């Protein structure tokens, strides 16, 4: 299997099928990274497309000096931050649960599990929003996107030690915020 760098170099040489392969590998990750950043399902696809358009447009200048995912998530972070700042999406938990537009037909039977997951999603998002930006990004990249400390350090342009500190501090704050949902045995109401 070709590496991301090899695919990107083929894209630079004009092979669009290589870029399609890159998108197949990374699109879902970027989409969910943006979704967790903004908690806006409807905008996440557009923003994810924007991220890959920027990567594609920059293909002619690409130099394989760092991991492709580092570059990709750097762009994804910039796009997400710009969008959040533009839209000022620090919305309250109540607004999120009212206006997601997912379950408009009240006659449809919705399982408790789905309702609970939807609530937990909003609870987690609200807790994440209270974290300083770098701690939030560090946790999202390490926990959800599976980036190493080193890759996350490249995205955040800091040291590995700083990333570990961000993850550590962010995690402690989340434990305090989400204490009511954390039981000793790890069962949280399902």
């Amino acid at each position, binding site marked *: 299997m070709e590496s991301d760098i090899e695919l990107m170099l083929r894209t630079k040489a004009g092979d669009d099928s290589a870029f399609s392969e890159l998108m197949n590998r990374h*699109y879902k990750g970027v989409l969910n990274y943006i979704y967790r950043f903004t908690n806006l399902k409807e905008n996440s*696809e557009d923003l994810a497309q924007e991220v890959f358009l920027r990567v594609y447009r920059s293909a002619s200048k690409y130099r394989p000096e760092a991991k492709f995912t580092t570059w990709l998530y750097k762009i994804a972070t910039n796009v997400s931050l710009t969008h959040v700042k533009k839209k000022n999406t620090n919305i309250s938990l109540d607004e999120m649960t009212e206006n997601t537009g997912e379950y408009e037909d009240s006659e449809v039977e919705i399982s408790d599990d789905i309702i609970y997951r939807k609530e*937990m*999603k909003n609870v987690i998002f609200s807790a994440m929003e209270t974290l300083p930006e770098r701690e939030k990004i560090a946790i999202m990249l390490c926990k959800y996107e599976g980036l190493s400390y080193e890759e996350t350090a490249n995205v955040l342009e800091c040291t590995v030690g700083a990333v570990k500190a961000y993850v*550590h501090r962010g*995690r402690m704050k989340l434990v305090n915020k989400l204490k009511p949902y954390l039981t000793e045995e790890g069962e949280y109401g399902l």
Partner: protein
Amino acid sequence: MDCKNIKELLIQYSLGDLGSDEKASVESHLDSCNECKSDLSESKNLWSLLETWDELEPDAQFLSNFWDKAAVDEVKLKPGFLNWVRDIKLNWTLAGAMASIFLVSIITFGVFSPDMVNNLFMSDERQDELILIELDNAISTETAGVLAIYGAWDGGTDVDGNGNGGIN
């Protein structure tokens, strides 16, 4: 190690980031401290809780949507007939040298051209003299023309210096 030190290390312990000595110290403390054991459990539970955040599935058409947008972009970024101008890779040194040669040629031609009156470097007195000569020529032409119709106005004055007189 006391509880305060252990709590600092708990997350690293849960992530497997501790060296063997520190790991042994933490585990030894956890055996006898329910509070720290509870904190560790909460930290692990948090990580599990974060995993309940559902993932989105990409739109089935995400690839074709992307290439449609990329194609639109390509049209926008490539203007029409001026595209070739945009693509010219200019050798600035050569362009500067040619511009200088052109400028010097213009100036040289202008200064040393024998058939043109070069007013640029002329003194003010010489310019005034030329203006007066032009004026005299213009007046002489006009006067000769008038006299041809009406004759001389001052009673026989030799107007043109050729013995031709005016009106008496």
